[in-house]
């Protein structure tokens, strides 16, 4: 688990020098080598000071910081895997019950940070750690930032393209918590279908095309103000009629479809908030007490909450279930 990241010129590289046993507890080390002229990278300062004030069962715990002249080491709680790895281990879509449990925890973490006016701004499966129990922990707050109440303009170059909402792709810098809700919606779909919701090609224009192919091209009628966005050009997005269908969303069971659609609204103002989404009927099959836990208590403390065994497992192909037990179609 040592993804080398070159984030900005400030950082030469960052890696996870995993697994150390301190006081009998497993920890993960994130080592950041510094280019000396700029001091501590802003991503590290933001991440550390944010994690100092965020105490939540679905947010990774930062135990300690070791700061020397050349490097900076963050000591995190050790979490076994992340959602990207989990999905590649269980291809073709996750068990619908497990998706529900993961999405609930993701929205719980988002509701917590959003109520403190903090945006994550870089949601993607790699940044969601998964414990062996199934606990989801939001990590990598390097691009997160505390946000004061009136909306400020942020630079638009922050979110990984596949999880970037259309308003930001169209050049809006006036984004808010709806930014993270779009990313969460994309991850939701990816867990269900086993492949990314909007795997666009390299450019922002192509990413928008991929989105419009599913949601339809927006207009002033369904998204007031869209034509005022910096990168909006009328007539720019004309899709072949055959392309303009929403089969992607129509295959879903009703309640799932409803929540996914509320999260993946093109117009940011129409997107459901994290707090409201936790009350959605999609979660009604989970035990009621999980909605009334203290921030720091894991949902797995509630009796009856557990992960189901995934149907497919690339590490245990022999354990494959009988074909009749597999979902009939490649749908969620």
């Amino acid at each position, binding site marked *: 688990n040592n993804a080398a990241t070159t984030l900005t010129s400030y950082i030469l590289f960052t890696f996870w020098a995993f697994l150390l046993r301190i006081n009998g507890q497993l920890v993960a080390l994130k080592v950041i080598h510094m280019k000396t*002229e700029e*001091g*501590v990278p802003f991503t590290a300062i933001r991440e550390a000071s944010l994690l100092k004030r965020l105490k939540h069962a679905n947010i990774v715990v930062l135990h300690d910081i070791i700061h020397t002249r050349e490097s900076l080491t963050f000591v995190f709680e050790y979490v076994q895997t992340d959602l990207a790895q989990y999905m590649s281990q269980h291809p073709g879509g996750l068990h619908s019950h497990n998706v529900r449990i993961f999405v609930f925890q993701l929205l719980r973490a988002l509701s917590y940070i959003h*109520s403190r*006016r903090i945006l994550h701004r870089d949601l993607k499966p790699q940044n969601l750690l998964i414990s062996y129990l199934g606990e989801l922990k939001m990590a990598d707050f390097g691009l997160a930032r505390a946000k004061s109440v009136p909306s400020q303009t942020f630079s638009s170059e922050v979110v990984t393209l596949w999880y970037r909402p259309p308003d930001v792709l169209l050049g809006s810098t006036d984004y808010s918590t709806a930014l993270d809700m779009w990313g969460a919606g994309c991850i939701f779909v990816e867990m269900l279908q086993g492949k990314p919701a909007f795997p666009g090609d390299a450019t922002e224009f192509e990413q928008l095309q991929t989105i419009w192919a599913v949601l339809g091209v927006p207009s002033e009628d369904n998204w007031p103000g869209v034509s005022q966005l910096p990168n909006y050009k009328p007539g720019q997005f004309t899709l072949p009629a055959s392309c303009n269908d929403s089969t992607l969303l129509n295959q879903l069971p009703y309640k799932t479809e409803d929540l996914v659609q509320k999260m993946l609204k093109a117009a940011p103002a129409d997107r459901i908030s994290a707090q409201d989404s936790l009350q959605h009927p999609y979660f009604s099959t989970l035990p009621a007490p999980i909605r009334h836990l203290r921030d720091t208590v894991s949902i797995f403390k509630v009796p009856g909450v557990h992960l189901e065994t995934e149907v497919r497992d690339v590490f245990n192909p022999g354990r494959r279930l009988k074909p009749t037990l597999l979902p009939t179609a490649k749908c969620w």
Partner: protein
Amino acid sequence: MKNPGAAESRRLVVLLEAALLREARLWKVPVFRNGCIQGADISSSQHQDMILWLGDMSRMFHFCPETFALGVCILNRLLSTVKAQPKYLKCIAFTSLVLAAKINEEDEVIGSMKDLVMQSGCNFSTAEILRMERIILDKLHWDLYTATPVDFIHIFHALLVSGHPHLVPSIGLGSGKTPPDFQAVLWTRQVQHCMACHQLWQFKGSTLALAIITLELEVLTPDWFSVFTDLLKKAQIDSGEFIHCKEMVDEYLRSLEFSLPANAVYIFDSAQIQDEERARSPMQRLGQARRGRGSAEQGDCDEYYDGLRHLYSEEASPGAEGSADVSAQKNVSPCPPLHPAVN
């Protein structure tokens, strides 16, 4: 602007409570004894000059007011934690601002460390700044997100807009053509001025912010009292300390008034609001109110503050608040006769 509702108000109260908790945990300012920071040779005027200089730097680098406020909070926390020598004061202050910028500003705004140092006109070496950065992060345990006075201005402003929508047209909280955060910008500027006044440091950011807003509300609306008690209650601010702070802020801001661009802004405001049937010009209102406050304060302030304290400690029952409103509306003076409301 989003239409405010009860849910938004609840969300803001959660936000305010989180900010108050952070303030209670992290707010710290140096103690002054005999004109110097206790345990160090830094005088209050040196300290004050440094904060004014940080304000200049912050403007020059195009940082937002939140960054300036956070930089000052980091500086004050450090000075109250370690014994600093005067010769390092500028380096500490500058590094505090750089740290605040790294947290608050987008990276493309910050620029390289070398450029910042060069523009500042200081002759620190980068190595000095980096060493100081390490010391500050270490001494403050990397825990830099203090809730600043500017944060509280924004939160209180949002609470006013969402909780008292009837005020929006009357006091220009985002009415008509003025931008929604117009008043907040004005208050932010005032709070920045107050942060450079060492007598005002002894008050927490939440108290300072509420004092500034209340002074303004008194002038802008006859309905200010019920609005203010609501905010005071939500912010769990001690009323005695609040009264003390408000008096000092009032005095300080009036001493600055000639240099404040605030008056110019009022004139601009009046132009915007005139179409909304404003009978008197805000300049008249302002003048009258300021005079009124000046003369009324001498004689009436004891009774007035007693009344205030009384009202607050009795939880300001809805009936009492209501009648305070009525009496306030009859008399547009900034100090409404409160006694009937209490007794």
